[in-house]
């Protein structure tokens, strides 16, 4: 972490640059969602747009963590705390995703048309 005056002055430039980068990628995310020329995949919102949006968000979050939160200069103990928490959070998300991919109950998970697709619509509709 920057400690001397010269280092801090240098770091300030980096913080400003990262701030601008975050602004830029926010605009990119909105453009991908709203401008037709940048609408990848099918017309309108779909899995491709979701993936792009989340990749950009993850990149922005990484910049905040590494530069603003000084994770690029931290001690191993901090990585341990943070890594464990992230692991827990990802496990929760994976668990939900995994339950949805159960082919016995939910039919073919690749058949995505924007609507709920139960294997047997007569019996599998959840109220």
């Amino acid at each position: 972490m920057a400690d001397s005056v010269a280092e801090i002055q240098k770091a300030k430039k980096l913080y400003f640059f990262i701030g601008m980068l975050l602004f830029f990628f926010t605009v990119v995310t909105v453009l991908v969602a709203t401008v037709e020329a940048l609408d990848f995949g099918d017309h309108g919102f779909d899995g491709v747009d979701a993936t792009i949006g989340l990749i950009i968000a993850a990149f922005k979050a990484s910049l905040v963590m590494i530069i603003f939160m000084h994770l690029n200069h931290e001690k191993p103990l901090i990585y341990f705390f943070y890594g464990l928490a992230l692991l827990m959070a990802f496990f929760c998300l994976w668990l939900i995703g995994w339950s949805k991919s159960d082919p016995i109950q939910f039919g073919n998970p690749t058949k995505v048309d924007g609507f709920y697709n139960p294997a047997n619509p007569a019996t599998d509709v959840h109220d």
Partner: protein
Amino acid sequence: MEIPFVVNARKDTGLNNSKVGIWLFLASEVTLFGGLFSGYLFLRLYADYPWPERALPILPGLINTFILIGSSVTVVFAWAALKMREWRKFQVHMSITIACALGFMVLKAIEYNAKFSHHAVRISDSGPVEGYGILEGHKKKVVLEENDRLHVVHKENGKYPEESFDANRIVFKASEMTFTLTRPVHDAFVIEILKQAAKRDSKITLVEDYAVMDEDQIGKDGAEKTKVLKAGDELTTDALDKAENVFLDSRAHDSAIRTNFEKASWAWIRDEKGIDKPGYNIIDLEVWKERRKEDNEKLKPLMIGAESGITFRVEPALTLILEPSWMTSNGRNTEQLKLRDDTVIKGEMLESPMILGVDAIDFSFTAMRAREQGLDPAAVIEKSWIVQEPQLKAIWENHQEWLKGETARLAKKDREPSDLDKYRVTWQKIVAYGQAKEADPDADLAKMAEEQTLALPGWLDGFAGADHYNPEMVKHFPEVSIPRDKVDFESTFTPKWNTYYAIYFTITGLHGLHVIGGMIVLGYYLFFGRKMYDSNPDWLANRVEVGGLFWHFVDLVWIFLFPILYLM
């Protein structure tokens, strides 16, 4: 007492204690928000209705993203200023950070307010499928005219008439009401009914005496019941309370006798008949059933047996204006209403439509249900009540015209319209169709869609949604009278409406609390940090760094929330 290791690092961890503390706290925050994001994923993947995609206005969310990113930069600048011993610069950067936090909360409040005042109604009649179409908009205000009909009123001098009420009430001409004494929770309803009766000079009086046998008179020859209330007594909360108390006492007396008989029978079947089995086996035995029959005959003369209902007559018949949420009946029985306390009001349902300034039509759910049943969504939608209503029909026809052009335009790019395009008519489209037809009644919307010349309102025209205070916009939102029997469910855009708004308010509400918490902590350093700065500037710098870490985390959460809630 001196707190150790607030500036210098401990040898074992290589960190000062404040930093270890904040990172442990942030780790717990990661798991908390991780759990909430999992909750979001769960609700979205398992939603049994089409998830509202891009349902929120983007601009407030986008500005808030800029605000939080900007404040993340200024908070780190504030820390750098302290490290360089520049108090004035620290003050400037920290002030900007706090101003950003305030700005964020103001925008959030505007956004929430728009949701609290915007309504959605499920229309029950969706033709051959068990689905519903949705109408969105703002409820109108009405007054009840002399002829018991509702009349829409508008603001005069910035105010609605005093006697006006939301155009979503049940209007019922009551001639008789029966209160159930087993549920003594009538007060709120009775007070409101009496208030309305006083306004309209109606009298609510007891039909028959309410009389109950005194406990010590039971079994005596010539004993008479004591009159608790007399026929003709007026309805008051006190009168009802009196009847309720007497009824509850008599019921307690009867229950005690019944229990004693049952206990005796239980002992008899065990001791005399030698049957010692659990209760659920005994109740099926013939011997038990016969014994209970005998018990019931013996019980009768010992019981008080007070009436559990008490009926009042309303003269002249009173036109009541009641909240739909008061009812357990759905308003489809036109001769009788049932309130939540089981009070039954008899009379005649008057026309009680919900009158809505409609700013969006949504058939996504109808389409989903139609597809599940192997039906053509378009054919199903054509049969729904919404498309039969003349004003909404005109909008839907305009939309179909636009969709034709849009389909042709997209076909040239090997694409096709999304379900959102097909089945949801947004307020922007309603305004655009209206403006196009206003400029030229013969405007070809299909051609305009194909040539992309149809001008949709911009982001600033409806900052937090359709602007119902702008007359130029409102004139395109038809005032639709929805018959009571078509209103399946109505709500503002709050957790009551669907799981999307439940998770939206949960996550953004919790995030908002974090913003407020961060603002308080950083504000403390700004306004009360000078003394610490003068005594030990590194200590304050460390504190600001720790507060800043929390602030960056708040920004980090929003970085994910913005695309997930506003763009997906």
